[in-house]
């Protein structure tokens, strides 16, 4: 008897454990591939997974098999020209005897890369594995709190709009039952007497009347108990709880003076995207403020930030000043986690540099969780780098890194956020 079974509704991910095993085994190679991929990836693409390729030779499953050479006999179909004793010259190069079918290849032909897709989450997991936000534990929890209103039981006082109807009516019912207890007991006794009298063959009318009057009186008394009273009322109670803030603001500062070409900006942009992705895994809401500057600083939108052309000199402190202003006005440090990343080619007007250091030290660094400065240049460092170096030595939340090419971004990023050993 055939037994038809519809398995289509069964899970289709029977292989997911094996897939996980595969990823687990090739974690190192995959991570390398992710690191390579991040520099090739379109910077605006933050929602898709990644296609990963691993050299096939790494994932061979070796087994004993016969190699090339020796004497082999083979039968082929479709003879269209040969007679016994014919000699077919071998193609130069030695291999490819006759019509293929040569060495048993155990994995796909000619593909030296094994390619497959990983999902966005897998991608980000791998990308940010072993990374953490620095210095977070050094700050007291109430530094980054916001208050959240939560329910906390019921109370007898409160605002009318918080009345809890069910609880109030329950209390009113209980009160009414309690207060009318003696009256109802009397009514029950009188009614019993009444029914006894009524059952007699000659009911004493006078007594019946007086009984009925007494019952009516008692009932009237019961009715006089108020339906609802002040102390029946129950109110929903709310209280405020301290919650660690899950909001972050990220300031992107960039030098757009003439010396910053599109390539340099692109490198900076990639760095910002990485930082954004990284933060978005830790915080629920993230706002990004773009500040660009040459001799003057200006808050702009994303497109203008990355693509508009400017020329002119460079005064870094203008951007720092603007950032500090915006932060004070819109992002109070008790409610926001403040991150900043500054990208520059290292140029600055020499007289401005001490001012920058001062601004950072006094107005910005005390409030920021992390401030990274990346210098994208192939030239020697200038005064800004040296000043910042001094600052970095004394401020753990301040980090400076040097990037030369696109390939440096991810390693530098990893270095910045490397999980610190306890």
């Amino acid at each position: 008897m055939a037994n038809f079974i519809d398995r289509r509704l069964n899970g289709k991910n029977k292989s997911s454990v094996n897939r996980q095993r595969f990823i687990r085994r090739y974690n190192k190679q995959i991570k390398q591939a992710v690191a390579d991929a991040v520099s090739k990836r379109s910077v605006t693409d933050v929602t898709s997974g990644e296609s990963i390729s691993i050299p096939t030779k790494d994932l061979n499953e070796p087994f004993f098999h016969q190699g090339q050479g020796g004497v082999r006999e083979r039968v082929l179909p479709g003879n269209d020209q040969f007679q016994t004793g014919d000699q077919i010259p071998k193609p130069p190069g030695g291999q490819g005897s006759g019509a293929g079918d040569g060495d048993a290849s155990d994995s796909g032909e000619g593909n030296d890369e094994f390619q497959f897709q990983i999902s966005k989450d897998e991608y980000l997991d791998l990308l940010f594995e072993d990374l953490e936000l620095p210095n977070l534990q050094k700050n007291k929890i109430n530094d980054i709190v916001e208050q959240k209103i939560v329910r906390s039981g019921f109370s007898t006082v409160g605002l009318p709009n918080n009345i809890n109807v069910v609880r109030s009516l329950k209390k009113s019912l209980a009160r009414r039952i309690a207060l009318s207890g003696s009256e109802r007991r009397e009514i029950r006794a009188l009614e019993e007497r009444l029914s006894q009298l009524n059952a007699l063959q000659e009911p004493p009318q006078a007594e019946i009347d007086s009984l009925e009057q007494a019952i009516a009186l008692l009932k009237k008394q019961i009715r006089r108990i108020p339906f609802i009273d002040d102390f029946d009322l129950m109110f929903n109670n709310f209280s405020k709880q301290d919650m660690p803030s899950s909001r972050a603001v990220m300031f992107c500062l960039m030098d757009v003076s003439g010396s910053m070409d599109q390539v340099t900006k692109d490198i900076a942009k990639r760095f910002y995207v990485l930082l954004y992705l990284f933060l978005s895994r830790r915080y629920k809401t993230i706002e990004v403020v773009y500040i660009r500057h040459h001799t003057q600083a200006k808050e702009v939108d994303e497109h203008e930030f990355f693509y508009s052309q400017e020329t002119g000199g460079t005064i870094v402190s203008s951007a720092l000043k603007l950032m500090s202003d915006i932060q004070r006005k819109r992002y109070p440090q008790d409610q926001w986690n403040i991150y900043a990343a500054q990208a520059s080619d290292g140029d600055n007007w020499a007289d401005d540099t001490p001012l920058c250091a001062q601004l950072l030290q006094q107005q910005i660094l005390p409030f920021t969780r992390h401030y990274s400065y990346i210098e994208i240049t192939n030239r020697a460092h200038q005064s800004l780098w040296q000043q910042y170096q001094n600052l970095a030595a004394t401020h753990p939340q301040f980090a400076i890194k040097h990037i030369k090419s696109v390939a440096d971004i991810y390693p530098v990023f990893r270095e910045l956020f490397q999980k610190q050993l306890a």
Partner: protein
Amino acid sequence: MTTDTKQKNDLDKNCLDKTHLDDSGDWTFDKLEQYHQVIKEVAQEYRLDTYPNQIEVITSEQMMDAYSSVGMPVGYNHWSYGKKFIQTQQNYQRGQMGLAYEIVINSNPCIAYLMEENTMTMQALVIAHACYGHNSFFKNNYLFTTWTDADSIIDYLLFAKKFISSCEEKYGIDLVEDTLDSCHALMNLGVDRYKRPSKISMHKEHQRQKDREEYLQSQVNDLWRTVPKRKADEQLLKDRYPKDPQENILYFIEKNAPLLESWQREIIRIVRKISQYFYPQKQTQVMNEGWATFWHYTILNTLYDRGDVSDKFMLEFLHQHTNVIYQPPYNSDYYSGINPYALGFSMFCDIRRICEHPTAEDRQWFPDIAGSNWLDTLHFACKNFKDESFISQFLSPHLIREMKLFSITDDSKLSHIDVSAIHNEQGYLAVRETLSKQYNLSNIEPNIQVYDVRVDGDRSLTLRYYPQQGVPLAGSAEEVIKHVHRLWGFTVRIEQKNSDDSIELLQCCPDKAANLNE
């Protein structure tokens, strides 16, 4: 109950009216049932003896899952299956490959997976092919009945899965994975080729596993006893251990490797058992596919002759069937070896022809079967042969001519390839013999045996490779030998016995021991 009888009445009515089965629209379970019913009737008329069928409809994703676990419905977890799955998924999504229409499992009841995407015609083809073709082959071919136990394979796989996951919990995924990797590397050398098995019911496996564990461990320790021996014993020790070379390397390691834990021995056993279970399938590819193809063709044609299926059905079926049995010639771009479906199908058809309409040539070549009852002969062939012997027994000159088979000799020392035989009077036997050899697994797979263990010395293990016609071992041996070393725990060598009886050391792991020894 009532609907059942109603359906049956409908069916009867259909047969009476000689109107064919519904071939419109998509398949439904009702239609599947109806088609199955008529296919089954025809199959029984042809005396196809099968396990009960369990037909499961699955989606393409589930088919990919099934692919990556070699079709088994339960399997232990291993990264290589994940790799296989990812490969299949990639190839399928890029349109580089289609999925099989069905997968059928040699079990009792016989489980066949049908793809949801198939049309009604395809489902009927697949039911005839898998549920009656393959199924009856599994149940009757001597290799399968000797070597596999269809009743308990699913239970055994379940046991294996549970055992391996419990090992993972106890000893960690990495350790188990290492052991499995090494076993997989030797999987092909974990089968008994010549020995007959003693029949053990597999559900006893589980109960016996614990006893075996302790017993095995004590055996091994005995082998490596270090108690001083008397002179007489020393002479004995000069003899090799094992006394005769052993072909089943995994078995030898399971029983004799000095350092393995008992759970590792059990894992080796599991891999060995599964390898042995698949061994008959490797040896009967042409026969198995040919048999199933022959029967789907014969059964569906019979249905058509009886008026059960429509012209439309038949045209679609023939289109699919022709694709399946297409054999590109040697010089075609599509050529990738001999198509087992084509060869097997042609051979079974040819046997039927020889029985029904023998020519003078057939009477000369096949005096036993020419003119005999074709159904008897076919069942006889199905029961008692494997690819190698089937071809050397039944490949007829007629078919050699039809397929224009020719054999070539490729000697790597020469700069040209010899055409050694073609489809003519002088060539038939040679072609048949060569083709038969081509399906002899001992010619295709390297012949490697356990040759010696230095029981009294450094405990090193020596494997010996016996080349066939001077074909060397592939370079992968260097990697595989590392896996052997991991299981054995001491030095492992592999040497090659050349045609002039000289012995040549091919690989040694760890490397430095090679020099020390010489």
